[in-house]
């Protein structure tokens, strides 16, 4: 087990370095890294029954940094591995041109940053991981070099840097107050008034990076401007990393700091994001913008964990609790959104533009891609048998169990809005006109189909992931944050 964690942390970085050295072999290196990591994860998940801690360099936490894997980390690592494998297979970059030489190393760096964040237990280390993630993401967003993409990348960078600074400020305050950066050491601290400010700053910073409702303006232009494989990574994984840190912060490091007002604010912003994202997605004419605003909406679901987590849920023996439901949603959304963006990429390449009207007749030209898009849509709408449904079910059950059914409004209305804005592309694909799309090889269509099927299987076989998530689940997740 002691070899798995280093592998997970270091191999993507090594891959990136190799890709810098040999730009032409980028895809080969990428697939090699994918195989190694998938194998490592298989072994990890197989053998994981209690959280595994690895103090780096042998130095115990207050001094050194520790890497830890529990159910939550394993789940997100798994999500990253599956999505990245799909994206690396689907990425069309060949040779050593400008884009190819940059895409492969940046993608692997992004993967490395994700793994570093999911494994790390140290606040400052999380900050450096977030920075690496942001730089790689901004570079990928600007990869196409078009005026729109560049402006979107700059705006993304400005928002993200402000987020990082706020987070750094919070970390500095925490260290200054308690002299400890490790997540495990923080719950034992003697509470200080400055902790409120520190937590507020950190949370605000992470909200921006997760693109929650009022701070989401950067996401849609950035994700729709980026090339398809890049926007798949950006939309499916990057916001999840900062949300992961929020989960760690609020359910492991500072569970006692939560106040009803704060929880209610998070829930309200989450519900607002669901409705706002849905309405905006309805208004878009370009498919990638529809999917990007769908991300804004789906991210709103995640923040329902604050008002719902615990509450009365623990009282019902069978209630899995919102915490697991939200994680399920993050996983299902990751898979579905990656599949959708890859499909959008296929159609953009085949039709020349990504307006929804260009999709007319796609059902005949690219049947597998339309089927994949439909499966992903089913998961986003939260219809059975998809992972999205399991998540929605767990969340709505917790809402009712917690005696706060109004929190169930978000997921339910979100499901209907998702049905509304995802219906248009699917219906266009079924339009009777002869498709003017250039034929797309079935091999390329297989990747999004696999990812979309992943989202559905997450629903069908939801027992194993559910049990995985219980390993090392912070008990605050059951008892509630206050």
């Amino acid at each position, binding site marked *: 087990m002691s*070899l798995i964690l280093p592998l997970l942390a270091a191999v993507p970085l090594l891959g990136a370095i190799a890709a810098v050295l040999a730009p032409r072999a980028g895809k080969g290196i990428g697939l090699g890294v994918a195989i190694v990591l998938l194998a490592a994860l298989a072994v990890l998940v197989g053998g994981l029954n209690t959280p595994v801690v*690895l103090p780096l*360099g042998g130095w115990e936490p207050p001094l050194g940094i520790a890497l830890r894997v529990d159910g939550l980390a394993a789940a997100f690592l798994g999500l990253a591995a599956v999505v990245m494998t799909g994206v690396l297979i689907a990425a069309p970059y060949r040779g050593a*041109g400008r884009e190819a030489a940059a895409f492969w190393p940046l993608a692997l760096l992004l993967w490395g940053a994700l793994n570093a964040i999911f494994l790390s237990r*140290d606040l400052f280390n999380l900050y450096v991981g977030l920075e690496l993630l942001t730089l*790689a993401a901004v*570079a990928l967003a600007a990869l196409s070099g078009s005026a729109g993409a560049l402006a979107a990348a700059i705006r993304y960078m400005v928002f993200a840097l402000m987020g990082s600074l706020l987070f750094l400020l919070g970390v500095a305050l925490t260290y200054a107050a308690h002299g400890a950066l490790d997540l495990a050491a923080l719950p034992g601290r003697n509470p200080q008034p*400055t902790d409120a400010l520190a937590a507020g700053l950190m949370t605000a910073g992470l909200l921006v990076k997760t693109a929650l409702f009022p701070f989401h303006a950067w996401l849609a232009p950035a994700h729709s401007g980026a090339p398809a494989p890049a926007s798949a990574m950006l939309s499916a994984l990057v916001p999840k990393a900062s949300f992961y840190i929020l989960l760690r912060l609020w359910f492991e490091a500072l569970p006692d700091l939560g106040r009803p007002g704060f929880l209610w604010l998070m829930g309200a912003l989450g519900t607002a994001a669901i409705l706002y994202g849905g309405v905006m997605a309805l208004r878009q004419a370009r498919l990638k913008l529809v999917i990007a605003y769908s991300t804004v909406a789906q991210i709103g679901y995640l923040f329902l964990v604050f008002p719902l987590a615990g509450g009365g849920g623990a009282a019902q023996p069978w209630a899995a609790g919102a915490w697991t439901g939200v994680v399920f949603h993050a996983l299902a959304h990751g898979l579905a959104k990656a599949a959708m963006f890859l499909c959008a990429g296929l159609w953009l390449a085949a039709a020349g533009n990504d307006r929804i009207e260009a999709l007319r007749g796609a059902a005949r030209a690219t049947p597998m891609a339309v089927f994949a898009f439909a499966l992903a849509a089913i998961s986003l709408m939260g219809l059975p048998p998809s992972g999205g449904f399991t998540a929605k079910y767990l969340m709505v059950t917790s809402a009712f169990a917690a005696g706060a059914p109004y929190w169930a409004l978000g997921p339910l209305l979100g499901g209907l809005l998702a049905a509304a804005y995802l219906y248009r592309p699917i219906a266009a694909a079924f339009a009777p006109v002869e498709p003017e799309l250039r034929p797309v090889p079935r091999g390329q269509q297989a990747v999004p189909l696999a990812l979309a099927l992943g989202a559905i299987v997450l629903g069908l076989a939801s027992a194993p992931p559910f049990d995985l998530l219980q390993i090392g689940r912070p008990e605050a997740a059951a008892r509630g944050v206050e």
Partner: protein
Amino acid sequence: MTLAFDLVLCAMIVGAAICAAVAGTIFAAAVFFIVYGIFVSLAWLRLDAFDVALAEAAMGAGLTGILLLRALGRMPASEDRPGPALAPALAGAGLALALGWAFLALPESAGLGPVVRNAAPGAGAENPVTAVLLAFRAWDTLLETIVLLAALLGVWALSRDEAWGLPPGLPQRVRPDGVLAGFGRILPPIGAVVGVYLVWAGTSRPGGAFQGGTVLAAVALLVSMAGLAQAPRVTSGALRLVLVAGPLVFLGMAFIGAVLSLWQPGAAFLALPEAHAKSLILGIELMLTLSIAVTLAALVAGPPEDRA
């Protein structure tokens, strides 16, 4: 007495900062920013943080200043009307007040100073900061170098397709006998000596890979600006090897530690064997310095461009 000095210093720092923020023209803002950087280095000296002072002066003031000035050169001089001032002022003041209150409300805490000091010798470096950087929080430092690499890849990706393959930065045309050419011949040797010394001293006295690397980067920039040597092409294997040498060695050592840990209880990922920790740290620092120098130089030079 020292309080008066501190107050004056802080006044100078805040004044420079305000000028940099609200200066009429961008050039003035850049110049004030460099001055502000120097003052902040002085402040670090007051806090007995010599490594940080060096870093702030070299990177904070120096390199960032060059970046801004170089970018200014390419910008049209457009007068600039910023947006509404009320909301930003509110936000800034609020944050400053909150931080000020928090600073005063902070409890007395010794932090990790004593713990680090008595563990540093074991880690192979007397200078506690280097010990923290290269031993205790080695993972942070490793990620940091990767961040540098990522930034460079991002910068190179922003070149235009037709310019891909050219050396990084703008081709320089300089008069062979001019002042710049003169400086180009005199300063580099001094800079090289200072840089290597900084890295060597890093293990016991203030200094270290980053500060040394920055000085060497400055030397490299001076040489290429003076047109004395042509930077290698972006796609050249040698350049790329040097770029990744530091992190590669660092990761290699880390992995060896991980593999050893399978049958040796002492070893671990990122752990340097006790016996010759000092020499290993020095070796890693040298390789890091090399990579950091070239990366910083390329970063400041900017993406390859085919014409002025």
